[in-house]
Each structure stands twice: as structure tokens, then as C-alpha cells.
């Protein structure tokens, strides 16, 4: 019932509608687009170095003759996957840590919140920057995802904790306690579901946050490592020659902005649809 109401509100929300359409198109482009392109992303065209967009190479080529269209879409796939995974992990972590800390209070709360404080102070940029270039073999990007997620859940978990503190005093939670329901069950049955709007919004916005975070680290060469490409590595490369060869910069940067924008639009629309008190 509620899901239906939310869904209807979401459909009526212009932002969310445009955002979803844009996102579907972008994801479609990333995963279906490569099948239509004339080149594979690993192929190198030794006859065309740094050639501009044209009928053969739709989005031009790089300095080593790779097809920008194929490479950019490949990079986008990675960016999308990284964004989704990081958002899922970090929001899940935030929900569990925040809800347990808030509900149980006492020393569990103290220990968990101390951990949150510590992680907030730890130099995340430095740690990722030092560790990730050293993870060259195999699925190094998965490690990168884990690192990124590990440093992006703390603020949300604080919010979850403070909301749990107020939910804990709600009468329906007290009612559950007085029925004799175990506390961990109360957390998963009554606390977390009632935080779901916050969590869904947070997860959505975390997707865009993670996409930007990945790109930012990759910009300095601290993120996704070659031979893998992501939008971040492509932008980094492109920006160096952006004045002379704008297509190297324009396509990955434009797609990155479009991706982030569409996810943010959905997130904002979700906020309006899920939170009846909001001004929509």
C-alpha cells in the first residue's frame, strides 16, 4: 500500500521522472552502446592518433589510438558499478552500526561512535592514495570499492543513530519491548524499516558521491589502475590536453556530470516522495 503511494508520488515527481529516464538512457548507453561501436575498447588504431570525432571514430581517438567511444563507455561501466557497490556497502554499514549504537546505547554506543570518530579523523585520502596503486593484480578495483565504502558511511551512521535514539522512545517500539520481543529483532523489524526513507535517499546520493569520489582519486592516479579505465582516469588524461584535444575531456566529463546529475535528481525526487512532510 505504502509502496504504491510512494511509487505514485515518485512518478508524479518531475525531477525523479527526468532523472530516471536519464539514468536508464545512460546505463543503456554504457552497457548496450559498446555493441554498436565499430571498435573494441582494447583495440588500437595505429592510423589514427588523437584524431577528432568523425564517422570512423565517433568520439575521436586517444594519443595511443584507442577509440574514445569504446573506452569512455567501458570507463562508464566501471564508474557505475563502483558507485552502486560503494553505496550499497556504505549505507548498509551505516544503518547497522547507527541502529545498534542508538538502540543499545551504553558501552556498545560508546565503542561504535568512537570508531566512527576515529574513521572520520583518519586520513582517508592518504590511505586510499597509498594503498590502491599498490593493488595492481586482478580485481584491484574491488579493493578500491571496499576502501571507498569504508570511508564513506560514518556521517550517515551518526544520522541513523540520532534517529534511532528518537525511534527507540516511540510507543510502538516500547510496545514491542513490553511484548517480550528480543532487541535485535526489534531493530530489524521496527527500527530499520522506519528509517528506510532516509536509507534509500542516502544510498541514492551515495551512488553519486562514490562516482565522484572514484573520479577524484583516479584524477590523481590514486584510484582505478591501468589497464582498467574509469571516467576518472579518462578525465584526468583528457584534462591535461583539454585545450588542444577537447574531445578527450568533453565526453568523459560530460557523461560523468550527466550520471551524477541524474542520480541526484532521483535522490531528490525520492526524498519528496518518501517524506510526506517535505515541501513537494
Amino acid at each position, binding site marked *: 500500500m505504502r509502496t504504491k503511494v510512494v511509487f505514485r508520488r515518485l512518478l508524479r515527481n518531475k525531477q525523479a521522472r527526468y532523472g530516471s529516464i536519464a539514468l536508464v538512457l545512460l546505463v543503456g548507453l554504457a552497457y548496450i552502446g559498446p555493441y554498436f561501436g565499430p571498435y573494441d575498447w582494447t583495440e588500437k588504431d595505429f592510423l589514427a592518433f588523437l584524431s577528432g570525432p568523425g564517422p570512423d571514430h565517433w568520439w575521436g581517438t586517444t594519443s595511443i589510438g584507442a577509440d574514445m567511444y569504446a573506452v569512455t563507455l567501458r570507463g562508464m561501466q566501471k564508474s557505475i558499478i563502483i558507485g552502486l557497490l560503494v553505496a550499497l556497502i556504505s549505507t548498509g554499514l551505516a544503518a547497522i552500526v547507527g541502529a545498534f549504537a542508538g538502540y543499545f546505547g551504553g558501552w556498545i554506543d560508546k565503542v561504535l561512535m568512537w570508531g566512527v570518530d576515529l574513521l572520520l*579523523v583518519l*586520513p582517508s585520502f*592518504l590511505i586510499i592514495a597509498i594503498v590502491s596503486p599498490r593493488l595492481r593484480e586482478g580485481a584491484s578495483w574491488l579493493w578500491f570499492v571496499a576502501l571507498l565504502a569504508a570511508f564513506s558511511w560514518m556521517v550517515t551512521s551518526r544520522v541513523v543513530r540520532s534517529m534511532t535514539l528518537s525511534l527507540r522512545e516511540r510507543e510502538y517500539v516500547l510496545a514491542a519491548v513490553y511484548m517480550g520481543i528480543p532487541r535485535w529483532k526489534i531493530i530489524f523489524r521496527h527500527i530499520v524499516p522506519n528509517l528506510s526513507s532516509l536509507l534509500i535517499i542516502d544510498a541514492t546520493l551515495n551512488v553519486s558521491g562514490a562516482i565522484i569520489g572514484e573520479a*577524484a582519486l583516479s584524477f590523481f592516479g*590514486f584510484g582505478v589502475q591501468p589497464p582498467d579505465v574509469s571516467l576518472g582516469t579518462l578525465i584526468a588524461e583528457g*584534462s591535461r590536453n583539454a*585545450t588542444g584535444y577537447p574531445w578527450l575531456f568533453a565526453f568523459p566529463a560530460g557523461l*560523468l556530470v550527466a550520471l551524477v546529475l541524474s542520480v541526484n535528481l532521483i535522490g531528490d525526487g525520492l526524498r519528496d516522495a518518501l517524506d510526506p512532510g517535505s515541501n513537494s
Partner: protein
Amino acid sequence: MGKYLLRRLAINVILVAIAASLAYILAASTMSPRGAYEGRQPPVAESVVDATLDAYNLNDKTPVLQRYATWVQGVVVGDFGRTWNGGSVNDEMGRRILVSARLLLIGTLLGFAVGVALGAFSAVKQYKLSDRLIGVTSFVIMAIPVFVLATLLAIGTYNLNRGLGFTLIEYTGEYNPRLSGWDQFLNRLNHLILPTISLSLGSIAFYSRIQRNMMLDVLDQDFVRTAMAKGLPRRKALIKHALRTALIPSATYFAFAFGTMFTGATFTEKIFAWHGMGAWLVDSINANDVNSVAAVTFFAAVCVLAASFLSDLLVAALDPRVRVS
């Protein structure tokens, strides 16, 4: 109160110590500036390299913990050691903090002031054209990462300058060392234009969103209605009662931003070639400069904690409800 402050201070000291130690050990165990000496032409003898590195406490042949102990002894008395090529980390840090502060001060203030004004305006004009325009613009700006924005600005300026045939707006560096006096001051301001735009646009968008939401929360509150029932015109009631109350959350963000301002803005500094704290972090990682890396981390941790304390103080100052009586 005193006891509370002492406890908070103690916790913060521990947090800084952990953060900095971790950074040092991580940096010291994974990177070594030896490569920078070995690759030289003409080659330098290994014993000479060892001696130099020993002098800077950077020799990877010394056990990490032993180097750590030496480093701690220095840090305790306020000496962060030597850079990879023998300069004083303290001097370098002092210089770079000032560079970052000069770069960021205007942008931080401007971002807050303009952002809050736009947000409040937008809330009052909810659903009007101006509100939608501000909303859409800030949405788009928030979706543009600062390195893309800065690069775009740099490209734009490059083309503008080329089109004009002379340099109207500078886009690299902090100032032209050949100028002096008033001319140099103007030149410094000119160098500030682009980085300030790239820094403040994002925060304007950010603050305007927050302020709009906060303001909308407050607009429907009873006390705004009371203020109007007293006979205040709507405009005055909104500014004096609603904005003043809705300012508290954005002001705490601002306090935090102000406190962390000195840690620099990595992307802006790198892209516009300012040698501040942010650029130093990237440069020192790339240069395997262990002591600098640890110093930057230490400083950043201090700033973050000081900033959060500052924002707590500001909340207490602005909001009588949380003040200790």
C-alpha cells in the same frame, strides 16, 4: 564545564595521535625517497645516499618502528622533521598554510554569504520562477566535480585570453613575482579570480540548498505567524525571525568549513598551480616524502577536530536552547 573541555581535549589528542601515527607508519613502510637519489646522474654512492637518508630519518634500511620513535620525539617538541631533500617540514608547512588561507578565505566567505542569501530568497519565492532557476542551477553545479569545473574554467579563460590577444584573467600560480607594490596586489587579486569562482560556486550551491530547506522548515512555524500577528510585515518577519533561526545549521557547516579551510583545496590548488596544503599532500605522496605526508595528516586531523569544536561553539552561541546556563 572545565572538566568537560579537558575530557574533550584529551580525546582529541588521542585521535590526532592515532591518525598521525597511522599515517606515518603507513607512509614510512610503503614509500621511500631512495629512488629519487639512486636514479641521479652522475650516480651517487650507496653509502652517501644512506648517510643522507639517515640524516633526514628517511632510510628504509632502518626499521620502521625505530624511525617512528625518532619522528615522535621530534613531533612532541614541535619538529616534524625533514622533507625528502632536506628542507624543514615546519617551514614548508608554515608557508603552505598561508598560501591555502590566502586562496580559500575569500571563496569560503563568499560561498557562505551568497549561498545563504540565495537559499533564503529561494525559500521565500518557493515554486516561483526564481526559485526554480536557483534550484536547477545549484543542482547542476553540485553535479559537476570541482576538477571538471576548474578545468572548464581554465579552458574558458585560455580561449578568452587567446581571443582577446592578451592575458585578461590569470589562470596559473599565485602572483607574478616580477611585480611589486600596488601592481602586485592587483595581480594577486587577478590570480584569485578563477580559483575563487571554482571554489565558491560549489559552496554557493551547497549552502543555498541547505538554507532553502531550513528556511522552508521554519517558514511554516508558529513563531513566524506570531511575528506577523504582532504586526510585522511579512518581509521583516521572515528576515528577523525566520532567517535568524534558520541560520543556525548553515552557520555550523560554515564554522566547519572555515576550520578546515587551512587544509587546503587539493584540486583547485593542483589545477591552478598554487602551492598550498592541498597540493602538498598529492605532491608529497608522489615524491615519497614520508615526513611531509605525516605532517599534512597531523595538521588535517587537528583542523578537523578544531573545526568541529568551533562549530559546536557556534551552535551554542547562536542557539540559546543548547547553551549551558
